[in-house]
């Protein structure tokens, strides 16, 4: 449904998108994940025909966005990062204007009105139909933006951070709405919120500094990174030798003290991937007479994967993910990266 091949976009000397290729099948929801300035918005703008690419090609619903932009735009609905609303129009006036622009000439006035009503119901904005766009809350603005993208019932929906600025309830509603659109629509959404991807998307493209660093399902990405099983163990009244003793267990690769509150000590225990060391750890702690207060698996979330992939200096897809830096180190790197390397948003 969407095919992007070797897409490159340069702004003068700055390369915003560098040789990006991916496909989106019909009815799929693809998550476009990356830190700010990674090139998500630029890629989406190329796909929607807002700007041409420097190199490469993009096809939407069978129409080349460069050669046949009008046809491609007719089958695309786009929600930009800031909803493109006219402040002095009411919601209904606005949707009428957009409807006139986007619906083919064959759609009459009555049908246009019924479409507008339908799309307002779908996005739960019917109660604001006569409110001026400038008077809407951020959540409603976002939903009017979504209504605008849906009005011509496009095959492809491109949503740039559709849940940004919404409150938790609205986020849940919006995600449910997006999920309900899958199947009949092909959706590409960008986000830097990771749970969003695992909750809404069937496939993820992780992009960093204009390059694709990974393309996979959220599940596969999580699985790939389970190179080692890691536990968090909190014990009470342990001696100073607790860490070496734990390391001595068969199958335990590494023990790191994470926190200490008086008698309570928390350890991160990394074990070989194929071993479940929880019974052994529990037995050891009890045998030693310490109190076992907490033991839980430290699972690699999409967050960790994301940070590992995007903080990897080589930015190379082929870098073996499982041998990435340990979790805590990754966190630190990422924090440094987030504060230091914040690129201006393209």
């Amino acid at each position, binding site marked *: 449904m969407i095919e992007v091949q070797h897409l490159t*976009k340069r*702004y003068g000397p700055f390369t*915003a998108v560098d040789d990006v290729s991916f496909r989106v099948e019909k009815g799929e929801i693809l998550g476009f994940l990356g830190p700010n300035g990674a090139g998500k918005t*630029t890629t989406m*703008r190329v796909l*929607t*025909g*807002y*700007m*041409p690419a420097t190199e490469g090609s993009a096809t939407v619903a069978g129409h080349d966005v460069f050669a046949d932009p*009008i*046809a491609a*735009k*007719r089958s*695309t609905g*786009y929600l*930009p*990062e*800031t909803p*493109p*609303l*006219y*402040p*002095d*129009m009411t919601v209904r006036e606005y949707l009428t*204007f*957009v409807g*006139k*622009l*986007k619906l083919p*000439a064959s759609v009459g006035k009555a049908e246009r009105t019924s479409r507008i009503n339908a799309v307002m119901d779908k996005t739960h904005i019917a109660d604001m139909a006569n409110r001026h766009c400038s008077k809407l809350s951020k959540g409603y603005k976002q939903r009017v933006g979504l209504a*605008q993208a849906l009005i011509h019932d496009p095959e492809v929906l491109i949503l740039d951070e559709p849940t940004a600025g919404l409150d938790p309830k609205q986020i849940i509603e919006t995600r449910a709405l997006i999920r309900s659109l899958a199947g009949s629509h092909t959706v590409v959404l960008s986000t830097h919120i990771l749970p969003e991807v695992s909750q809404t998307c069937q496939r993820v493209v992780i992009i960093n500094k204009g390059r694709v660093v990974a393309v996979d399902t959220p599940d596969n990405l999580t699985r790939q990174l389970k190179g080692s099983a890691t536990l968090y163990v909190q014990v009470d009244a342990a001696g100073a030798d607790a860490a070496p003793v734990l390391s001595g267990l068969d199958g335990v690769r590494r023990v790191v003290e994470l926190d200490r509150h008086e008698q309570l000590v928390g350890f991160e225990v990394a074990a070989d991937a194929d071993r479940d060391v929880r019974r052994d750890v529990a037995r050891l702690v009890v045998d030693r007479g310490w109190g076992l207060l907490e033991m839980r698996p430290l699972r690699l979330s999409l967050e960790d994967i994301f940070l590992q992939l995007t903080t990897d200096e080589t930015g190379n897809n082929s870098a073996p993910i499982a041998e990435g830096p340990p979790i805590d180190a990754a966190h630190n790197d990422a924090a440094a990266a987030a504060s230091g390397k914040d690129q201006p948003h*393209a």
Partner: protein
Amino acid sequence: MRNAFTIAGKEMRGFFVSPMGWVVMGLYALLFGYFFMAHLTYFVQQSMQSQMGGGPININQFMIRPLLQNVALINLFLLPMITMRAYAEEKRSGTIELLLTSPVSDLQIILGKFLGALGFYAALLAVTMVYVGILFAFGTPEWRPVVTGYLGLLLMGGCFLSVGLFISSTTKNQVVAGAATFVVFLLLWIISWLGQSAGPAMAAVLDYLSIVWHFEDFSKGVIDTKHVIYYLSFITFGLFLTMKSVDTERWRG
């Protein structure tokens, strides 16, 4: 063309729901009213004098023609306010993303914006017709030169608007767009002044370039294709530049 009219309608509506549109219209009526009063007082004086010696004087020639020529001055100050927001505002608020990703061509967007601005300008001229109507109520001016005069004003305004649109398309900032448009209008007007000190050949060229010079024949009741073609090609050129500017912006991102 349907899309262009949709956008033109939206632009027109934008003028009438914003205070800006009403302020411009009010100022337009105020300035025109001032010129109307000044010319009328002068005309009354002149006709008194001419009654003492000689025949009556022509109201078209002594009143309406200079009055309509003064509209160029009003346009100079007020038309930048019509076009300055056309593109600048859409770029600033991000609504340009909606227009450029809708199944509409650049030409349709530009024509729509031009027609919208021209429509609002026509509404301004319609307001001034009230004053001219007063002359018809109390006197018997010739109506044909009035019609050609208004046609000329529409074409002259179209030139200003197409240039204004182009300038607006080059910036995000309304104030910059407005100020630059004003300066360019002024240059286009006073370019013929240089001609007075240059040789006659140069003067002819500079006169020809001046937007206002071409209006004179219209105000006299003459429709000369030379001037119509000048205005129409000027408008086309302005819209062409706008199109190139929008396209350039698109490539530069």
